[in-house]
């Protein structure tokens, strides 16, 4: 069956790269897939996989979602009712949290328990920018990676999960923070798989097999 992947377009960042990376994966692994960029709720409804990218500040991303008519309801139905595979990338992952302390206190989607907090500075350069090791916390089959891999990060805030079971992988930068989170069919990655070379493409492939 053809996979229908929709990259949600709500005015945030470089989504062309996200689309290209999914196209590349489907070509390389011979997956029959259609990869769309869309904010149309019909496209979302017809999808098999949804990707929520995100760049910039939490609030502007959340507002971007809210200001796209019908989108929050459509993704809620897709991920929370039908329980189809959903992937949040970077701020798209952070939006899954209950709230964020970036520039105030702002509510998120609240799909995975926890809060977005500032990375402690500890004389480290901010943002946390570049390639860093991501270590899986478990070997469960639901994980998106099976061994330590380098991924490309750009962020100054992190997802402080309330429940350990939602953390699939962690990364160290001043503190150890969750770099892959999940709850059932809902996944979030703090790094950019679309910018993480072959390791990133492998992770995308792993998501597409969910």
């Amino acid at each position, binding site marked *: 069956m053809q996979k229908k992947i929709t990259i949600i377009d709500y005015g945030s*960042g*470089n989504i*062309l*790269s996200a689309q*290209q*990376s999914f*196209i*590349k994966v489907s070509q390389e692994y011979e997956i029959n897939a259609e990869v769309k960029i869309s904010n149309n709720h019909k496209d979302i409804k017809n999808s098999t996989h949804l990707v929520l990218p995100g*760049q*910039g*500040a939490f609030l502007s991303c959340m507002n971007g979602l809210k200001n796209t008519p019908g989108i929050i309801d459509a993704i809620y139905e897709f991920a929370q009712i039908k329980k189809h595979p959903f992937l949040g990338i970077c701020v798209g992952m952070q939006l899954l949290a209950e709230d964020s302390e970036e520039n105030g206190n702002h509510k998120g989607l609240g799909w995975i328990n926890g809060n977005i907090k500032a990375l402690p*500075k500890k004389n480290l*350069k*901010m*943002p*946390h*920018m*570049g*390639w*860093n*090791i991501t270590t899986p916390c478990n070997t469960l089959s639901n994980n998106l990676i099976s061994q330590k891999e*380098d991924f*490309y990060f*750009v*962020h100054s805030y992190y997802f402080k999960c309330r429940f350990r079971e939602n953390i699939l992988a962690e990364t*160290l*930068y001043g503190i150890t923070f969750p770099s892959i989170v999940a709850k059932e069919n809902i996944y979030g990655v703090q790094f*950019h798989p*679309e*910018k*993480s*070379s*072959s390791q*990133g*493409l492998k992770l995308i492939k792993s998501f597409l097999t969910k």
Partner: protein
Amino acid sequence: MLKVRIIPCLDVKDGRVVKGINFVDLVDAGDPVEQAKHYSENGADEICFLDISASLEKRETMINVVKETAKEVFIPLTVGGGISSIDNIKSLLKAGADKVSINSAAIKNPEIVKQSSDYFGSQCIVVAVDVKKINNNWLVHSHGGTIKTNLEALEWLEKIQDLGAGEILLTSMDRDGTKLGFDLELLNHASKILKIPVIASGGVGKMQHFYDGVKKGKANALLAASVFHFNEFSIKDVKKYLNSKNISVRL
């Protein structure tokens, strides 16, 4: 642990590479996409395109180059050269660039750093700073290093950091092309005052220079052009060398 990044820089004019790889049998050595892909498959952590097109219309071709690159290259791409407005930045990011590097435009109007980082996020705004020592002062130069300004380099760096730059690409004009190594004194001063990452550029001739740039200059990333283009050593060689000296790199 965060890895030190190695970034090859390609000069692109009118959509074609004019300073790039000279040693591999590429089907079309002038094709920026092919060159970027080669580097990405051979250990580069990011790619930098510097557009040196003379005219505005020719710069439009850069948009297509970026679009095509985004289809083949899955590591971060920075594009610099001739960026003068928020619209320029928007069209490059929309085409698939991850970061843009601003230089002369920031000197002309520092507010562009604030406006662009507010609008697009600091993470995609790199400010390139070209520095030359004159009478014992590090002075910033604009327009590809051809015009001297009165800006003192370290003061300028602090200012653009405060305005929201996400990263600094610091080039020592005194060292550029000399193969004598990075200007470690400049780099070290800059790294100390900056809370944002610093990319060192200008002067690499030996592998030891990369090590010094990190160890003594405290750079977070290292940019080089000719040593890679002429295959004096490969990015993989540099990374193996750094790794053997206990510097964390992506292998």
